[in-house]
């Protein structure tokens, strides 16, 4: 925790001290967050946007640390993402999931390609296809819980559009994702035998040029016998004082997790983009 705080302060100080460092081709806020799974999006759902502020002649790198705390669980994630010419995104996330008396975790290798459209301009919204390879770092612990499948692949398609003049004349970002997955609690509790399609959506209203208020909804397959899983939801406030720093704070409702009901709490993420 001390290291986490120190790292947050270091990243913030660095990002604030250099307000125009690195890739800057996208409009403020339109690089999104690096999600808890490493791909660009909101906190818990992917968007069709690619990580960072690089436009189609720029590279950009993003790094994020995230903590989710509920009554019985804590999920921490460290992730990095590379945006290449606003066309391809490569990402990696390492998650640690503290459950009562034990710890689980997973690694997520991600790739996303923008296949059509644009977030803001022209007639087509931005459409991206993505994949994630997820691998448990604690296969033995999962085996002890009776979960055999500890690695698998997610596939998803996302569509995103920023409406410059949205509700209340505020710019509004809308995202929808369809995901094919076998993951149980996103893979933290391993994988089931059957692939399912799930929907994820989010919307954010830009209250000002550097502040967004948003909602996210992530449905999940719910295929783990005896341990029901619910959709994840959150309400977030995201602040991007410049193109190098993004902070987000959310109230999350994760529903039932690993036998514990009504898990809710906070979500905090801090990230740097260059």
């Amino acid at each position: 925790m001390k290291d986490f705080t120190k790292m947050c302060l270091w990243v913030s100080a660095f990002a604030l001290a250099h307000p125009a460092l690195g890739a800057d081709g996208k409009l403020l806020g339109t690089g999104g967050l690096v999600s808890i799974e490493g791909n660009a999006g909101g906190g818990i759902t992917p968007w069709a946007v690619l990580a960072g502020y690089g436009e189609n002649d720029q590279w950009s790198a993003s790094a994020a640390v995230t903590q989710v705390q509920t009554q019985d669980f804590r999920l921490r994630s460290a992730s990095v993402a590379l945006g290449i010419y606003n066309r391809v995104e490569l990402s990696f996330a390492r998650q640690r999931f503290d459950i009562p008396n034990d710890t689980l975790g997973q690694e997520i290798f991600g790739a996303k390609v923008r296949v059509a459209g644009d977030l803001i301009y022209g007639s087509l919204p931005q459409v991206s296809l993505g994949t994630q390879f997820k691998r448990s770092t604690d296969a033995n612990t999962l085996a002890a819980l009776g979960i055999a499948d500890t690695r698998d692949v997610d596939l998803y398609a996302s569509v995103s559009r920023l409406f410059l003049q949205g509700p209340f004349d505020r710019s509004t970002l809308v995202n929808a994702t369809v995901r094919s997955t076998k993951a149980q609690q996103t893979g933290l509790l391993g994988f089931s035998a059957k692939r399912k399609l799930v929907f994820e959506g989010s919307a954010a209203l830009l209250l000002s040029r550097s502040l967004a208020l948003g909602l996210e909804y992530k449905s999940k397959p719910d295929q783990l016998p005896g341990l029901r899983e619910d959709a994840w939801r959150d309400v977030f406030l995201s602040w991007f004082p410049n193109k190098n720093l993004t902070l987000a704070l959310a109230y999350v409702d994760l529903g039932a997790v690993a036998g514990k009901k009504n898990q809710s709490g906070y979500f905090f993420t801090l990230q740097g983009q260059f």
Partner: protein
Amino acid sequence: MILKKTLSMTLKLTAVVGALFGCAQAPSAIGSESDQPITVSDLYQDLGGKSGVARLVDKLIENYRADARINVLFNETNFEYFSARLNEYICVRAGGGCEYKGLDMIATHSGMDIKEREFNYFVEDSQKAMSEVGIAVGVQNRLLKLLAQDQPDVVHQ
């Protein structure tokens, strides 16, 4: 219960996707010969009418010229001409009932090969200029939405 939930989610998503794909808007006619009625839009009034737009254009040009990322694009610009056309253009786009006497967007930007990020720098400088002349963010967004429709005609010409 779950079925109901899924159904309502699906409906919501359908609405969202519908909204996403329905966002293309036909650009209004630019430079059409007009005896347009002198009814002026709310947006044009909110921009401060003719004098408000003139003040905005001065600030826009000041910001573009001061921006090292894009000011090279103005190396051969006649600013008196540019200012007059920009006033007309914003007036037409905002529904102020003017006549635009310049070339269309493709011809105007021909040979400049403006990149996507450069277009965004113009947007940022424009947002800054609008704030500097006291235009509220909501009014800014109404104008930006109309000007952003031209992006495909402006970049890579």
